[in-house]
């Protein structure tokens, strides 16, 4: 797994500034001077260090410290080897005072996930990104700076959290920025859907009129109290279902996401029937194997079931959804564990590892 964040960046030689930047990485020493200030130059071994960039990075052991110190160029930082994947067009947040670097966006990746807040109103047993009750509104401000720097050839951006809708109008701003700056990029918003139970909020979000936007919303059970238990929030089921209804009423695309584990597998066929009978109009149903991340470790006893042991329930559920012509996919399960009939429904996971913010 790539490490996207570090606090181990050290300056080499003299520094003239120490402000935090959101900047695009460039390996082009001939980049026109007019745009250099919004870029960080990433030096390769043989490069002469060019001037005019906001900062200059060189990979650990690639340039001799004496050579750097001898050159005219200031504000040069050495980045550790584990960040050697960083390349042209990537976007980073760099704070020289803390020596902190966060890779916000990778141009070479078909799927980039933007963590927009760590706050959440659910507390899911198997949360892969445990929520924090903090003021992290700066993240959106940083992302609003980063989005105009992203490549227009990006196939897909995922908005994740925490719960993105807790941002309210800031989420609106973020999605508008994505729409305006990346006119051919698909956007996938991972939300618990509860905020969309507010018809006014949903109608306002729908005014974005994005060309390719899907809301991915989890429904873990056909029974309200079981869903509420999995997400550890009373009343969540009703809000989520009403949210989905409001989104579809406003012509938004919705994906239902179900994580498969000990609390969800038993009623999986019943959940499939519930979705077919009540939410037939959703655009996609994603059934996903459990990932051993975040809270999952702490709730292993309540969550773990060998995927081999729920193949019957999984097959029954997929048969029902498929029969109702719902678009259904299976993610995060080893093909060798899957019932043969299910294999055509298995997809390669389309989400990269989540970008973790280190504070």
């Amino acid at each position, binding site marked *: 797994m790539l490490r996207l964040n570090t606090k181990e960046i050290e300056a080499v030689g003299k520094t003239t500034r120490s402000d935090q930047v959101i900047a695009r990485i460039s390996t082009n020493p001939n980049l026109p001077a007019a745009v250099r200030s919004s870029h960080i130059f990433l030096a390769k071994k043989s490069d002469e260090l060019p001037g005019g960039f906001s900062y200059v990075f060189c990979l650990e052991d690639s340039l001799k410290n004496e050579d750097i110190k001898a050159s005219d160029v200031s504000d040069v930082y050495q980045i550790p080897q584990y960040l050697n994947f960083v390349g042209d067009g990537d976007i980073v947040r760099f704070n020289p005072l803390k020596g902190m670097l966060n890779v916000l966006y990778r141009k070479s990746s078909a799927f980039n996930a933007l963590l927009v807040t760590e706050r959440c109103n659910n*507390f899911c*047993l198997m949360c892969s990104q*445990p929520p924090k009750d903090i003021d992290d509104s700066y993240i959106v401000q940083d992302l609003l700076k980063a989005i105009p720097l992203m490549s227009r050839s990006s196939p897909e951006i995922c908005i994740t959290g925490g719960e993105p809708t807790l941002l309210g109008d800031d989420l609106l701003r973020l999605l508008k920025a994505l729409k305006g700056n990346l006119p051919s990029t698909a956007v996938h918003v991972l939300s618990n859907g509860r905020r969309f139970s507010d018809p006014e909020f949903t109608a306002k979000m729908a005014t974005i009129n994005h060309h390719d936007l899907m809301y991915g919303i989890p429904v873990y059970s*056909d*029974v*309200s*109290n*079981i869903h*509420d*238990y999995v997400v*550890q929030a*009373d009343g969540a*089921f*009703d809000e989520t*279902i*009403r949210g989905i*209804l409001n989104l579809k009423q406003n012509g938004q695309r919705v994906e239902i996401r179900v994580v498969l584990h000990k*609390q969800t597998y038993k*009623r999986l066929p*019943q959940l499939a*029937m*519930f979705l077919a*009978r*009540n939410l*037939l109009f959703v655009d996609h149903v994603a059934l996903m194997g459990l990932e051993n991340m975040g*809270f999952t470790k*702490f*709730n292993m006893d309540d969550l773990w079931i060998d995927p081999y042991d729920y193949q019957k329930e999984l097959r029954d559920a997929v*048969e029902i959804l498929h*029969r*109702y*012509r719902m678009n259904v996919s299976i993610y995060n399960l080893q093909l060798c564990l899957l019932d043969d009939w299910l294999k055509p429904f298995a997809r390669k996971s389309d989400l990269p590892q989540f970008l973790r913010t280190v504070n």
Partner: protein
Amino acid sequence: MLSPPKGKFRSLDTFNESLAVGYKLLPFRFIRLDSNRYVLTNEVGEFIVVDDNTLRELVSKVLQPNSDIYNDLKAKHFLFDDDSNVALDLLSLKVRSKYEQLSQFTGLHLFVVTLRCDHSCPYCQVSRQSDDRLAFDMSKETAAKGLELTFKSPSPNIKIEFQGGEPLLNFELIKWIVIEAERMNEVHKRDLQFVITTNLSQINDEILEFARQHGILFSTSLDGPEYIHKANRPRPGDDSYTRTISGINRIRESIGPDSVSALMTTTEKSLGSVKEIIDEYVQQGFHHIFLRPLSPYGFAIKTRWYERYDVDRWLDFYFEGLDYILKLNKDGLPFVEIYASIILNKMFSPFGTTYVDLMSPAGHGIAVIAFNYDGEVYASDESRMLAEMGDKTFRLGNIHKNTYEEMMLSDTLLDALEQSITESVPSCNDCAFQPYCGSDPTFHYATQKDVVGHKAFSAFCRRNMAIMRRLVTLLTDDADARRILMSWVRI
């Protein structure tokens, strides 16, 4: 790294506390399925089979909260509790979907272009005329008025079906109607479809080429193997079977394999031969069969063929056929019985049916309308069959004398519709099969002289209850049958 949040998580039990104060029932109906089980259906046709004791516990409100059956009933919207009331939103949405098609109004428009026929079937339900009497042909003026009325319907899907007699005996008028309808549709922009209901004896290259160019579908009659078909459907030369089969093959070759469908009618002669009849359909390359009883109209009454078997004998025939079809499927041949598939769609699809007999309110006038050769307008195919027997009860008016509004707002139509709403019909209103059933006002009028009819004496009721019981039982008890039956549902 995070510290383990153990203790921050609440147990499932704490989320069940709101269930302890009890639950409320949502509207549902129940009926005995067999000696120890009931079938429960809710307002939108979701069903569940429970034993006697569970039903008693459910209605006494002593079901164990969070038990499997409690959760099943809650998720299928038979009950709701303090934990969740989104069921009410979902139910109302489902009711709206189920009745949505009513707002589309009439889709099927029957043009009886002639009552003449070259066959002399003793069971003919339309009282055909011998084929040399032009007085029984529709005129171009009548057809033009019919098209005017057709495009008054707000439905986005307009199907024009040519009926007879044998409609191909007046092919010139069919051509005129098709071309005129297409011309009118350049303005109206509906999804326009044509079907010719024909015995195929008159098919020729000109007809085939015209049908191919205009995407016209054919619906024909095939009663089974040659000896049954010929006995049911005599014509001069004793060649009705070979003409039908050769017609089917010619259509498939020149237009396409799915351009022709066939219907069978059960006569006394068919009763012991359901497997042979089904095999005939399989051998002729059909993927489905519609096992249909005779209807009480026309020559079927006059010749008394209608009385030659009762509903119980027909049901034996039907169930033997259904079992055989399920076996064909189990043995690897996908094959569908259409009537069961219509009911299964009512059970599992969110939408209502457009099959006229199983609609509530009835499809009379609002799903189907018939323009007779003589310009008389009837509320259904069966209504004009009744009219040919001298009873014009369901006559809505005359194409040349009455306006669309006069006919569609006539008491004749509105009264029949109002009385056909099974939600309020005596003994339908509390029947668990109500969501799957319909009312056939013409049938009940023809058999009981009353559009509602006493259901205890209704063959329609007896037939449908028996079939629905059988389907629910198969769906509940037989996993293989359930898989096959579910594959007949078209969402």
